[in-house]
């Protein structure tokens, strides 16, 4: 066997065992009407579950909620993260300390972050509304039309550090030459940022957005800890909906179909994205 094949084997074995087996198992499940508490009634139904899911209003609503969440969260994390990364790069004192401290929200398990903010933002028991009241502001953090954005804020609090990390690393890897050339040419900071920094950072920006978006699509703990999908279904994200359907309501066949549909949609999006980037790269 060739060297390259032999190098791949361990990865393939572990991949198949740890990822392939559950993937296939769930796919088979999605072709049945399997319910944990009705195993005796299990039968093969081909793609009936998929049809069911596609016609389920709640599924599309959950996708919309998740999509909104991802867009707002990632855009905010990218912008704030980039600004912080730039500031950190130019920082002269206490670099190690500030960097490690600012990274700390990433290291708290998300359910704890959710519970933390549930109480911090509580009107009667929380510090933040208490402070806001002192300046005369009353804000319903988890009320209709607002809850999903409060979730975005919590996500931003926890995951901007991740963006900061990636972007800082990217910034520090850029070669100094183009910047020095721009300075010699008398370019303003804005110009340098727009025409030199951003284009050079483009690959890492793409990676950061991609990974963070995939991660954000799995948001679950914040919803579980604070709103349980409410008000109405305004914070019912796709992961929460799937969890409820498959595990709380025992409808594992249907939940598997939901996940596979999501997988197909995301793969298509990712492929489209990759193709566009390839095209852009070829052009430049």
């Amino acid at each position: 066997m060739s060297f390259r094949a032999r190098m791949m084997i361990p990865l393939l074995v572990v991949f198949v065992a740890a990822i392939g087996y559950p993937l296939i198992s769930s796919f088979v499940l999605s072709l049945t009407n399997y319910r944990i508490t009705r195993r005796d009634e299990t039968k093969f139904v081909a793609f009936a579950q998929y049809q069911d899911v596609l016609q389920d209003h709640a599924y599309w609503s959950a996708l919309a909620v998740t999509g909104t969440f991802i867009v707002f969260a990632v855009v905010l994390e990218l912008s704030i993260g980039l600004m912080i990364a730039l500031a950190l790069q130019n920082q002269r004192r206490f670099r190690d300390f500030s960097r490690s401290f600012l990274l700390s929200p990433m290291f708290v398990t998300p359910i704890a972050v959710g519970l933390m903010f549930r109480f911090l933002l509580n009107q009667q028991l929380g510090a933040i509304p208490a402070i806001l009241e002192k300046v005369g502001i009353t804000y319903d953090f988890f009320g209709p039309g607002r809850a999903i954005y409060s979730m975005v804020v919590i996500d931003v609090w926890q995951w901007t550090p991740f963006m900061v990390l990636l972007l800082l690393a990217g910034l520090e890897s850029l070669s100094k030459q183009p910047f020095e050339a721009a300075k010699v040419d008398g370019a303003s900071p804005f110009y340098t940022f727009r025409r030199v920094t951003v284009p050079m950072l483009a690959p890492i920006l793409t990676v950061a957005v991609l990974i963070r978006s995939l991660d954000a699509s799995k948001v679950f703990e914040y919803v579980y800890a604070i709103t349980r999908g409410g008000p109405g279904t305004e914070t019912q994200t796709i992961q929460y909906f799937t969890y409820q359907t498959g595990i709380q309501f025992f409808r594992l066949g249907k939940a598997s179909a939901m996940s596979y549909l999501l997988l197909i949609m995301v793969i298509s999006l990712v492929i489209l994205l990759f193709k566009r980037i390839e095209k852009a790269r070829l052009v430049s």
Partner: protein
Amino acid sequence: MRKIGARKLVTAMIAVGILVLASACSSSSPNASTAGNTEISADTAGTVRVLMEGVPDTDIVKGLLAEFNAKYPKIDVQIEPIAYDQIRDKIVASFQATDPTYDMAIIDNPWMGDFAKAGFLKPLDDLIASTANYDYNDFSAPLRAIGEVDGKTYGVPFYNYGLGLIYRTDLLSAAGIAEPTTLDALAAAAKSLNSAARAGIAMQPQRGYKAFEEWGNYLFAAGGSIYGSDGLVHLNTPEAKKALNTYIAMYKSSAPKNSLNWAFDEALRSVSSDKSAMMVSYNWMLPTLNKKDGPAGALAGKFKLATMPGGKQVLGSWDWAIPANSKVSDAAWAFISWITSKEGEAARVSAGGAPARTGVLTDPAVSNTGGGAEYYATVGKILSNAEPLCKGANCDEMINAVGTELNAAIAGLKSVDSALAAAEEQANKIQSE
């Protein structure tokens, strides 16, 4: 999961398709009998593993194990305390294994229908009937009804979580208000007690289970019911509309501001820190609130428990059950019958456990140590006229669907009429599957 080879259940129950049960009002179980004649042998042996939730009632049970082992020295009961969500998933996995991980289980009432119909649980009627001095009818009737599925008993009540109205006696008397006996009186009381510094009533409208659990009490107070005589869910009724409109009005005028996602914890903390005057909550919160050096601090002793206006309230419970694939049913039953016997119950309730039998409530020995005679009298009233949110199949899903619609109406996202209509439609669809 795809058909898993040759796995046989010890007892096979064939799912009977569409099942709708008549609403569970008091009905004496025809299978129970006070006159059993079998004493369980003190020689019964076995290791009984059980998952229990990490709450005070579990600690109390653990504390009684020594006494249990004095009578049954050969039975080793191993209690694994665990979080609520882990319980369901782990016991379901154990039920389906050929080699079970757990030999005894506590079952939350929404799961009872599904687990019984799936054949996960062993029918207990014969055991109950044959056990000496068991007196199964001593258990509160609504609680007994929870354990009954399709005419057989699958669970024996462990502890109840019935709700009631908990209010501040000092505030109510200072405002010159009597304990509310109608829904409108409750709304009026909440409104008068409402001030900038303190909300009239702490409410728990969180989407899903909590919203339905709390609102169900309002529905009963308005004279309504969840199920009709045809066994179907009927929520599109004038009583339900009145109950929901009153609930929403109270939420807007007398509940803490911005509390749409509040659940049990927030309401409890609000009431115990003098930021709300009342709440509808589990009856056993009363002793906790009135405990000196308890969570209510200086307010201890100022709380009273009352039935909901109208006298009927929502009930929940945990039941003891024996998995169908348990290999030590005798030992498991020895424990269950011991802990739920009159003596076991008296010991458990004296230590602060929530009662399931009616006899202990009037036993002076118990009520003097527990929460007081007045409290137990009220608990007795609560348990005599209470109903769970759901009976039959797919209860978790049904409760969630209704709770979602309710929460949407409370949030102003839907009209009361359309929310109730949708709730009824979805509930019946879910329960018919």
